[in-house]
């Protein structure tokens, strides 16, 4: 067997160990300690990571001074496989910061600026705003790379809800009214067009979507996706709440709360398995029966999965608790975390959690695309959310599992040479295999990077282990170096292993069932929160616009996320631009004044500790 020794371009992500300026040679040490000898070619050029809406930041002339020991760089070059000339010949370099300890993504407004930019793109793409009014009749699921509509007529509930989440998050961070208008109009559109209120059962479920043609619309009762065909998957119901609940945090609109309560009633009465615990992943759309033979069409009868058991927390439940402080939602969060901690670890077989189950929690390794495969992002999402719930109700079990995942995943789920995180991986490997096998490709999806960034940020912020800071920096540096679309706006769906955008098929799209302004904005919002308030020690302003008497007892809760107790205080409040003093700094609540119109509340949150 010959080795593949053709001329090959590649990427090396590593820390500069030493630099020989005279010979233009340097060595790079990767995250896992491998050293590569590199040579600067005469045509080499370099750029500093730039944010959305920033111009290209050339730093070619500074390469010599910036290749300092300890500096993380992304070196793209060519390997010729010639004996005696082993240097990796570098053609371009990305610097994530100008100095070894400075990462651009840790600048106080980095993520807020990115959030504003991404959300503004979607306003323009979906609604032609500001040239036209925001009207969700014009919303379309599929958007081309540059934001143009593709001519489809499908409006999916959970996809619109994801856009609404992005708009609400953009308002929270910027206070710019166009984002709140988009969030509220989207929430209303969902209620008017996508909601089914079952009067007999007094509960709500959400249509899969509608097909629109002019003024006509056809409602699609059950999912049209192959995985979930002719069923109501829990996944879609959960994400139907994501946008409205993030909007609820801002406005307190009681109609949103009512919809959420009645949707959760659906979960409790029809999805919950009172015998074996957890929640079923699918129910029959007519009988609401999770054990209906009709679900066999999608191999979904009596099944449970990550989405149905655990995805409640990040999608809507944490935000619902933040807005209401209700104990029943706290208990629900703890129930999801306890179920995950009890059922998902599978140390005897795999470093990855088990994500799919039969009713009795036996492992389902035969379902559809998943088989016996692990999704990197789900593992990291579990670590991230266990930490959040641990801050609410401290649990050694949650922290141990989060730390186990965080400690295990880099070796099995990340690219230790080029940086970034992979996608779907076989959960077991053969005895003669060094690596866990990548299922479809070695590309890196934007949302998998998000899970890594948020998991390691909150873990460093909470546990102060420097290893977690390192992983958060590496993940965020890779994301910001390669995922931002500086030509057309927004972020790319996938990049190749070497960081080049992959722009074919559905992965070329900006609007899609998966994308639609959700993960990219969630990443921005929570990175801004974790970095500023837990790590870099910068205050953060959040904006709210409560409707008159909307929140119970006129108490507005402004906590940005479930953070470690005592680490953040509410230090200043402005209402309609004027200083306001009736607030509780530790509880991060504002006692709103009586008003007959929506008040604009600016809350300044200040960290009590700085880690770097």
């Amino acid at each position, binding site marked *: 067997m010959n080795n593949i020794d053709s001329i090959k371009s590649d990427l090396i992500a590593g820390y500069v160990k030493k630099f020989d300026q005279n010979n233009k040679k340097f060595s790079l040490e990767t995250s896992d300690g491998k050293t590569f000898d590199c040579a600067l070619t005469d045509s080499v050029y370099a750029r500093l990571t730039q944010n959305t809406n920033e111009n290209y930041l050339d730093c070619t002339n500074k390469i010599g001074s910036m290749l300092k020991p300890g500096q993380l760089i992304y070196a793209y070059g060519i390997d010729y496989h010639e004996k005696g000339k082993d240097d990796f010949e570098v053609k371009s370099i990305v610097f994530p910061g100008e100095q070894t300890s400075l990462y651009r993504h840790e600048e106080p407004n980095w993520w807020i600026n990115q959030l504003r930019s991404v959300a503004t793109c979607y306003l323009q793409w979906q609604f032609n705003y500001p040239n036209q009014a925001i009207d969700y009749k014009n919303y379309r699921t599929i958007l081309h790379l540059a934001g143009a509509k593709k001519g489809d007529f499908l409006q999916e509930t959970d996809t619109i809800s994801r856009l609404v989440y992005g708009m609400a998050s953009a308002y929270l961070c910027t206070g710019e009214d166009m984002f709140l208008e988009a969030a509220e109009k989207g929430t209303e559109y969902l209620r008017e067009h996508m909601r089914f209120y*079952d009067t007999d059962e007094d509960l709500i479920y959400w249509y899969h979507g509608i097909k629109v043609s002019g003024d006509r619309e056809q409602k699609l009762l059950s999912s049209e996706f192959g995985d979930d065909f002719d069923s109501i998957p829990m996944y879609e119901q959960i994400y139907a709440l994501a946008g409205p609940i993030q909007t609820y945090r801002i406005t307190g609109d009681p109609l949103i709360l009512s919809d959420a309560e009645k949707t959760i009633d659906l979960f409790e009465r029809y999805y919950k398995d009172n015998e074996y615990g957890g929640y079923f992943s699918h129910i029959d759309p*007519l009988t609401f029966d999770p054990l209906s033979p009709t679900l066999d069409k999608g191999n979904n009868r009596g099944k449970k999965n990550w989405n149905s058991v655990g995805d409640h927390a990040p999608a809507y439940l944490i935000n619902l608790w933040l807005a209401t402080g209700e104990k029943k939602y706290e208990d629900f969060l703890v129930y999801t975390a306890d179920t995950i901690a009890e059922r998902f670890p599978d140390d005897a077989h795999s470093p990855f959690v088990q994500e799919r189950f039969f009713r009795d929690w036996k492992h389902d390794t035969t379902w559809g695309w998943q088989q016996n495969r692990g999704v990197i992002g789900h593992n990291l999402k579990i670590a991230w959310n266990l930490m959040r719930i641990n801050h609410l109700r401290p649990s050694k079990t949650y922290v141990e599992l989060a730390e186990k995942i965080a400690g295990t995943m880099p070796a099995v789920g990340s690219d230790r040479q080029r940086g970034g995180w992979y996608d779907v991986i076989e959960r077991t490997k053969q005895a003669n295999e060094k690596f866990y096998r990548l299922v479809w490709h070695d590309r890196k999806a934007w949302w998998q990077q998000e899970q890594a960034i948020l998991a390691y940020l909150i873990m460093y912020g909470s546990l102060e282990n420097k290893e977690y800071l390192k992983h958060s920096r590496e993940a965020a540096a890779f994301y910001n170096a390669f995922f931002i679309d500086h030509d057309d706006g927004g972020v790319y769906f996938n990049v190749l292993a070497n960081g080049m955008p992959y722009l074919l098929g559905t992965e070329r799209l900006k609007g899609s069932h998966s994308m639609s302004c959700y993960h990219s904005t969630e990443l921005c919002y929570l990175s801004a929160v974790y970095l500023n308030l837990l790590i870099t020690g910068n205050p953060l302003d959040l904006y709210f616009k409560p409707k008159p008497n909307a929140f119970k007892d006129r108490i507005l809760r402004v906590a940005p996320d479930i953070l470690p107790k005592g680490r953040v205080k509410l230090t200043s409040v402005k209402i309609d631009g004027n200083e306001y003093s009736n607030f509780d700094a530790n509880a991060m609540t504002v006692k709103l004044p009586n008003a007959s119109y929506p008040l604009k509340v600016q809350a300044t949150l200040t960290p009590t500790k700085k880690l770097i």
Partner: protein
Amino acid sequence: MEIAITNVENASIVVIDGDIDSSTAPEVQRQILPIVAENRKIIIDMSKVDFMSSAGLRTMLLIHRNSAAKKCLVILAGVKAQIAGTMKATGFYAFFTIYNNVDEALAATRGEYHDGDRLLSNA
């Protein structure tokens, strides 16, 4: 609520007399589902149904799904305006073939009406 089933010509006519709600929907399901069979034609006379709750809507959809699987033609006849409005608002209307009354529905089963002749269009 009462249900009467008679066989006329080449179709079964199911007359529902009374409201279809969470208390009566199971009975509708119990009586109609067994007669849903391959190549059969069933006309459900809804002219004496003044109210159909969401449980009723779901039951009707269940009948529709079973009939579609068995290539059995189910026609709703004499659906009152209020119920038709509810079915349209919820998106359920489009699933059914609907005629003004049983006579027209029977004519349709004889081939005298075609799909394009449906007197109530799918909105």
